[in-house]
């Protein structure tokens, strides 16, 4: 998408104003405080989906993001509960732990392509769940519960973020946290994709053999992209654990992994902000269909199929089409 510089800045400012000012204002005037929880979930799921999108961008169908979200959740929870770490420190550590794990896992499996890579990542999610059930440190099916809320974050005596437990409205605090992390993640993605790295990723997606013949270290680039992707997954999982104050082996399952992927498809694989829009629409779409009771899943799946047939390049391709016509 080629918007000019001023339009881009205006769009960013508008977006920030909506998520940081308009949404909280609208929620407090309407009293629908439950929406905070919903929107926080959307923000966190879109971070994980952004990671999946990035692996799509190097030509790999990733159905394994649930594994890293789960891993990130456990890493944060264990560090907070067993070692007394501050949540704020565990957040980047959980991301880095997942990134490191994904390098080890990615080195062998990123050689696979197409449906083979997809299948292996699908299995990965299930392996993560079974590990969480089996390992002593994760406390089996009982999970880790009663995780304290994030404490205060102070740097050199200056309190940047207050202790969540002392706040009247911790829902708002979590919402702001999730949205802030989301904005940072998507800014990173935008920069990646619009720098030369994005072009290099595209070259992998379109023709790995040619990419290596022009001197691109394809193995290295694939691992880097996968590590960033898994970092996002881990961070998202860590915040989820903090919000729900618990983490179980079933907190992220194959269904979540599949949903992360669907969010990307729905929003559009060619657009950085595709996963954000896709997550929003899918999450609310699913909720709206709740009234249809037993037909919920049927209608939902039917709509998904229709959408993919009508808009194979995702919802954001709609915006591009109208702009071209206009």
């Amino acid at each position: 998408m080629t918007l000019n510089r001023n339009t881009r800045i205006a769009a960013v400012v508008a977006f920030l104003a909506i998520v940081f000012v308009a949404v909280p204002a609208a929620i407090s005037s309407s009293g629908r405080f439950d929406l905070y929880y919903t929107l926080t979930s959307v923000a966190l799921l879109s971070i994980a989906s952004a990671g999946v999108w990035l692996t799509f961008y190097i030509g790999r169908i990733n159905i394994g993001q649930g594994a890293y979200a789960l891993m990130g959740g456990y890493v944060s929870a264990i560090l907070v509960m067993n070692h007394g770490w501050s949540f704020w420190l565990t957040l980047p550590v959980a991301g880095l732990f997942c990134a490191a794990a994904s390098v080890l896992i990615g080195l062998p499996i990123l050689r696979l392509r197409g449906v083979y890579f997809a299948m292996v990542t699908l299995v990965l999610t299930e392996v993560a769940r079974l590990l969480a059930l089996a390992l002593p440190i994760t406390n089996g099916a009982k999970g880790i519960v009663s995780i304290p809320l994030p404490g205060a974050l102070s740097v050199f005596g200056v309190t940047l973020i207050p202790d969540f437990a002392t706040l009247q409205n911790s829902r708002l605090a979590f919402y702001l946290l999730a949205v802030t992390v989301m904005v940072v993640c998507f800014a990173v993605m935008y920069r990646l994709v619009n720098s030369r790295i994005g072009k290099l990723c595209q070259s992998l997606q379109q023709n790995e053999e040619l990419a290596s013949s022009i001197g691109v270290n394809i193995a290295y680039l694939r691992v880097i992209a996968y590590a960033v992707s898994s970092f996002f997954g881990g961070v998202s999982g860590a915040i989820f654990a903090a919000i729900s104050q618990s983490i179980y082996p079933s907190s992220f399952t194959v269904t979540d992994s599949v949903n992360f992927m669907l969010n990307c498809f729905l929003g559009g694989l060619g657009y950085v902000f595709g996963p954000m829009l896709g997550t929003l629409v899918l999450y609310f779409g699913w909720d709206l269909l709740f009234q249809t009771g037993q037909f919920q899943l049927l209608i939902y799946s039917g709509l998904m199929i229709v959408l993919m047939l009508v808009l194979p390049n995702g919802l954001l391709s709609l915006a591009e089409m109208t702009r071209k016509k206009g």
Partner: protein
Amino acid sequence: MAEMLEVSGLTKRFGGLVAVNNVSFSVREKEILSVIGPNGAGKSTLFKLISSFLKPTTGEVRLKGERISGLAPHIAARRGVVRTFQETTIFRNMSVRDNVIIAHHLRSKASLFGFFLGTGAAKTDEAAFGQSADEILTLLGLSSLSNETARNLPHGHLRALGIAIGLATNPSILLLDEPFAGMNHDETMRMVEMVRRLRERGLTILLVEHDMPAVMKISDRLVVLNFGQKIAEGTPSEIQADEKVIEAYLGSEDEAIGL
């Protein structure tokens, strides 16, 4: 003249099949050397061995005296051996210009992280690549198509784009696998001129081609393969008079070598 590339005792087995069998020859600096031979003779396999896309069973390849066989393909490219592919090989969904810009990858001085941050070095690189890409596109007669999406190009221009991508890497030796395939006479002659011009600019060229008139016209020397073995080596006139070569082509394509 100095030797650019040295192939010695190169052999590649695929199970029972010996696709390339103990082949040795060398390519001199600024030379155009063609490898010819019937279908399945092992020409493309030879190219893949030289560009390190395949590891030789035995034998080795040296570039300016340094061994390059057995390296990863992107390392061989970094050393200066770059090949174009027999099948049309481009980045389909990028613009023509982006195809060539991305192929400047090896020349970048900025690191990946530098490109992410948009450092000064990265900006300098980007500007230089853009300029160089435009020059290459002009050289190959593609400048009017530079914003076209690559997959929409007509066949002749696709082959040219493949070569443009190879050139952008700034190789010491460029390996062209059937660059004239599927081109009509005029397009071929234009391409022959193009390849000559590349050599005048100092490039060493190794090429595989079935179009005999074009090969005879363009090459300084030829190497002939048959069933994986080198059966002859020499100037175009020497090859046209070679008994073994005539025999290898006889019956099927005896006119095709320009006799």
